[in-house]
């Protein structure tokens, strides 16, 4: 009995180590979006290259990526080459959401860095961004044929995130 009592600290510690071990494999910064599995919030916003509004209704029926970017966003420059490659490969259309940005600055930025987007819409006051729960630009949403959000990436895209998560998911959804 006595040894049992003296072993309590050890037992607590063993449980703690178990949790820490599991915790090591997790990313505490990854916050799941409540939008996953729900319809993408609808919008109808002017496009960056034409004043004709683009709405969610026109996008239903195909799988697409919605990439939130801005000319003021530094880490967007990091993921930009990947987006350009993705656009060249023509695997999936990428739509841009120019978030809280002056359209002139946005156009200049695209002219300078290349334009990977099928089209970009301008969210000048950030309202659509709020609907989408944008809190760190860049963010990328994967949206399926019926307009349901399937995945959200916060922060810049990377080769790993594209190869391991986004592209397999896109292929699955396109079947």
């Amino acid at each position, binding site marked *: 009995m006595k*040894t049992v009592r*003296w072993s309590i*600290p050890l037992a607590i510690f063993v449980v703690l180590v178990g949790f*820490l071990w599991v915790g*090591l494999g*997790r990313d*505490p910064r990854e916050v799941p979006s409540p939008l996953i599995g729900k319809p993408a919030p609808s919008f109808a916003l002017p496009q960056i290259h034409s004043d004709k509004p683009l709405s969610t209704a026109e996008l239903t029926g195909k799988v697409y990526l919605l990439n939130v970017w801005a000319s003021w966003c530094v880490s967007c420059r990091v993921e930009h080459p990947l987006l350009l490659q993705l656009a060249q490969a023509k695997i999936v259309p990428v739509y841009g959401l120019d978030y809280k940005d002056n359209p002139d600055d946005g156009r200049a930025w695209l002219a300078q860095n290349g334009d990977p987007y099928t089209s970009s819409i301008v969210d000048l006051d950030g309202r659509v961004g709020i609907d989408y729960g944008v809190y760190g630009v860049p963010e990328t949403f994967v949206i399926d044929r019926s307009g349901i959000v399937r995945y959200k990436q916060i922060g810049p895209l990377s080769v790993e995130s594209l190869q391991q998560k986004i592209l397999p998911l896109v292929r699955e959804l396109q079947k």
Partner: protein
Amino acid sequence: MIPELGHFALIVALLTAIVQGTLPMLGAAMREPRLMALARPAARAQFLLVALAFGCLAWSFVANDFSVQNVATNSNSELPLHYRVAATWGSHEGSLLLWTLMLGGWSFAVTLFSRNLPAPMLARVISVMGLVSVGFLLFLLFTSNPFERLVPAAAEGRDLNPLLQDPGMVFHPPLLYMGYVGFSVAFSFAIAALLGGRLDATWARWSRPWTTVAWSFLTVGIALGSAWAYYTLGWGGWWFWDPVENASFMPWLTGTALIHSLAVTEKRGAFKSWTVLLAIVAFSLSLLGTFLVRSGVLTSVHAFATDPARGVFILVFLAIVIGGSLALFAWRAGKVGLGGAFDLVSRESMLLANNVLLVVALASVLLGTLYPLFLDALNLGKISVGPPYFDTVFYPLMAPAAFLMGVGPLTRWTRTPLPELATRLRWALGVAIVTALIVPFLLGRWSLLVAFGLFLAFWIFATTVVNLRQRLSSSPRHGLLAKLRANSPSYYGMILAHLGIGVFVVGVTLVKGYEVEKDVRLDTGESVALGGYDFKFLGVTPGPGPNYRALTGSVEVRKDGRLIETLAPEKRIYNASGQTMTIAAIDTGFFGDRYVSLGEPVGTDPTKIDGAWGVRIYLKPFVDWIWMGAFLMALGGFIAVSDRRYRLALKTRAARVFGGAVGNVGAD
């Protein structure tokens, strides 16, 4: 060459630490004096080697050797010299090297101040410290080599994180680590005692000064970190319950409990296995803190580059060191025997209550810190635990602890007659209640929380006066000075540390109760009134700094139309990284601070600086008492260890042990 020399020194230090960690321990088990005699030289050599490595890294920083990866990432040729030195511990690798250096330093100190320790005890203590060193040196060499070269060398460094370019960076980490790592001594004494089967008053007397010194350093280190956050983060907070803060606070709580239970073990032979457990837990929490900070399992404002391999390494190390110690505890603690009996109202019971409260507080902080991780691991969702939880749980636990702190020192060992105690405390209770009722009125607004906080603080002050008076009047000597001298430094240290808690409570209570803040948009020449002062914004002027460009605001403070001072809050844009830092302007005073920080320029064009700005103004009554209290606590600790009895007692007791007269297992 110098970085390679440092790297080589680390490798030799590892080999020395392996010798230090094994042979003396083996010698103690085999009663072989020649092996035990290796303890001192091995520990000293290991310390000097790590110090050499540390010196090499510091030299690389000072000499701007950007062919060293660590220097290229964390320094810059424009960085002022003192920050280049401090940048040595600004990175993950450098701070681990500092950890290891401190561990070596404490081992070195043990070899110096242990002439009276029995040889087997010393051999075991030094060996345990050596084994911990082995773990850290392996960690450094295999996952976090600070001397990694960069090929080709960088032309310029990426600069030290601007947040760290602060005098706080020069002092806070070394002092904090002194404390953290200092608990390794108490830990090693505990393990050595468990191994040797000697857990008695002598052991407690040996551990006490080491624990108190480590605790004092930790107290100063935490206080400095808190003060640093207060003036650099620009929003006037001094404690955020951030996981990394908690990581330093948990060993502090345990260390505080340990100091008190060691007193009981030394004086009365009681609480032995509990004291040993606390000694193990205090250091384990230091290690756990290192793991939490370095592995990135929790989100924190202290963002360090994290690497899964590092996390796995520390976790395995943690499992071996802590798991091994607790297994040893489970195996041996049952054999140490119980201490003397005591009554419900006695100093023992007071200290027991203190320990229970501190440990419950520790458990609640630990739970709050790890709760997000627990839930995530069980797939129950992602949450974060913030100040509302900690405030709700922590204050109700600390309030009774503060109250008992007034009673405890007035009680006697074994038993105290209740009526006698009540007579002594009547006066103090009266003073505390009256003050608590009246002072809030004088400060302008009465509130229950302020009254309660002040009651606790004045209760501590008043009972301390009662205690001191009683000590002096019962002294047989004549003359106040002689009476004062009759008490030991450890008594005065205790008194001072307790007064420090009182001062701290005053600070916390008044700043929480009466602080005012205003977040306003001010045009040049515009002014705003707050708490009887007028703050007039005179605009912002740009100017150069050593490695940044500064935008310096100018705010005139007037009271009743009379100019008191001009505050100059700054925005700094660092050249190398382009990062912005806010430097608040603070007028520090005994009765409180006036605190002004610059927000952002308000208006359509953010590059236009001569327009209106967002300005944050705070009045923080008595806020500096928080840190003053902490420094008093630490000062009390340092005074307590100057007590001659630790040195004298060591000699006489050790002489008896060498004589083989004492067989101490369960002898109490």
